[in-house]
């Protein structure tokens, strides 16, 4: 019996507590940690948006970074090349990313599984190649640096709060989507597309909608990246980053809602703090990942959920 409640009260108070702690942190912590926290929020949002289609939708979204990059480049280009107010750029970023999601998804949903992923890698690489070489427009492989921001966002604390608030809003929105009938249908398609089609679900349209939603939130993450870093570069949409996001989802656990947040935090923290001691942090990441795939294929959060599930089930049965 699935949990139909939108809000689970016990964890709700925990989440409020965490949020309050995150809100009062900036004056206490050194700047460096604030920056890392904000980076974790951006990355977590990106990983969550991917997991919407990868973990819950069961689609091989192998080139999710494209939507992240498109969102980031859209806002960067609008802020540097036009004199439109910044908030129009902030809104345009996700919308353009969703547009790319619609276009790329429209081709991809015709195919299944691995071919879906491959076509997406091909289309995404095409976008990357154009951005990488179009020096006059996108700055080519140098990217765009020193993007002007509204004064409220130019300080680190300002951008921290902005990133935090937008991330929380997006997480709530994604949670509502996750709990909605649409989210349920998406999971049903993941588990058995054939049967879904048989009971009259338009599988492709649901998958396409899922991709558009995921790419929209991916675009939001891209915008937040620009707010934080004030720069964009083509690596934001390189396929290596896409696989790295997949890894974040795997680390936390595909089938849990908050898992990717944990995975993103783990990878960003690993890169930052192990990176201080050694330049070979990817070696450690790679080995960790291999151990994880061998021993905890359902991810860290998935493992804990599995572990505590029997107890929860027992409570339900008693009631």
């Amino acid at each position, binding site marked *: 019996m699935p949990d139909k409640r939108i809000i689970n009260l016990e964890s709700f108070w925990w989440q409020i507590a965490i949020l309050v702690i995150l809100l009062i942190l900036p004056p206490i912590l050194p700047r460096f940690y604030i920056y890392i926290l904000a980076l974790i929020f951006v990355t977590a949002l990106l990983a969550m948006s991917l997991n919407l289609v990868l973990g819950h939708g069961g689609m091989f979204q192998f080139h999710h970074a494209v939507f992240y990059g498109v969102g980031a480049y859209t806002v960067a280009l609008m802020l540097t090349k036009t004199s439109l107010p910044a908030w129009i750029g902030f809104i345009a970023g996700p919308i353009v990313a969703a547009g790319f999601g619609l276009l790329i998804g429209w081709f991809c949903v015709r195919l299944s599984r691995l071919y879906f992923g*491959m076509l997406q890698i091909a289309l995404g690489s095409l976008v990357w190649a154009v951005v990488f070489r179009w020096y006059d427009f996108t700055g080519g492989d140098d990217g765009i640096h020193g993007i002007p921001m509204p004064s409220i966002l130019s300080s680190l604390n300002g951008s921290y709060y902005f990133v935090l608030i937008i991330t929380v809003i997006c997480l709530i929105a994604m949670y509502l989507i996750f709990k909605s009938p649409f989210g349920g249908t998406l999971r049903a398609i993941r588990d058995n597309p054939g049967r879904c089609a048989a009971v009259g679900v338009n599988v492709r349209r649901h998958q396409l909608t899922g991709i558009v939603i995921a790419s929209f939130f991916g675009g939001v993450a891209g915008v937040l990246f620009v707010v934080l870093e004030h720069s964009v570069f083509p690596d934001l949409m390189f396929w290596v980053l896409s696989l790295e996001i997949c890894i974040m989802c795997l680390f936390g656990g595909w089938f849990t809602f908050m898992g990717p947040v944990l995975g993103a935090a783990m990878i960003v923290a690993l890169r930052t703090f192990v990176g201080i001691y050694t330049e070979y942090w*990817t070696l450690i990441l790679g080995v960790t990942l291999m151990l994880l795939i061998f021993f905890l294929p359902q991810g860290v959060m998935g493992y804990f959920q599995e572990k505590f599930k029997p107890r929860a089930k027992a409570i339900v049965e008693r009631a």
Partner: protein
Amino acid sequence: MDFLPDIGLATLGTQLLVGLSRAMILFIVAAGMSLILGVLRIPNVAHGSLYMIGAFLAFTVWALFGGGSTGFWLALILAPLGVALVSLIMERGLFCHLYEREHLMLLLFTFALMLVFADLVKLTWGAEYRSVSAPPIFIGSLPVFGLPIPRYNLFLLIIGPLIAIGLWLLMSKTKIGKISRAAAVDREMVGALGINVSWVFAAAFVIGCYLAGLGGALIAPTVSIVLGMDHTMLIEVFLIVVIGGLGNMWGALCGALIFGLTHSFGVLLWPQFAIVFPYAAVVIVLIWRPTGLLKSVW
């Protein structure tokens, strides 16, 4: 179109042959990946790393023997064998426990291996540029139909088809090739006939990785060997394998030709966006024939 430069027939011919020779390298690496995909069903993301290791090993062997002709030929023989050894350890130590997992897990597992290999290469060879020079016999160019073609490219043009024929003979005429094709279709049935499928898989994996190493050793004299060369190669090879039809060796050849030729003509037509042309070609092929040009073994 103002960006179109004046293209003479001679430039066109040279570019055609250069594109073909580039396609040969791509084909050798892609054929290896295709073999692994076809037989073991592993989307091997670490394939690009093995190609990079092949190139670095070629440099080491070449430098060890004083950097002359002997060094070059020995590098061409030893470097791919070294890569094959690495892959044998990889297969026996890691992959053989993971065949039952789904593709996504395998893909991410090989991605983890790619991260590990990248750092191991950095540890062993450092982050500097390396280069290997071809032996004197390959320096300069040879006139073909009155066009000056670099000799090394001609060498690649001979090697590529040889590899293709060799692989075809191996897969269709020898016992191990037949068994591995059968194992790709129905693993359990082949096992039930009393064949040790696990070792057949290992052999296919090692041959595939040997080809990656060979590609790396072959490309060593034409490019600077550097960290990150695995990234570009991997994505190109992946797409080649997909547009050719997963696991189909002739498909890999077609894909490599499409990739190499569109790139070299892209250089002529619009140098700035030369790398966009092959990707666009791949997208067109995939939209036209989503499961690849030739029949996939999947």
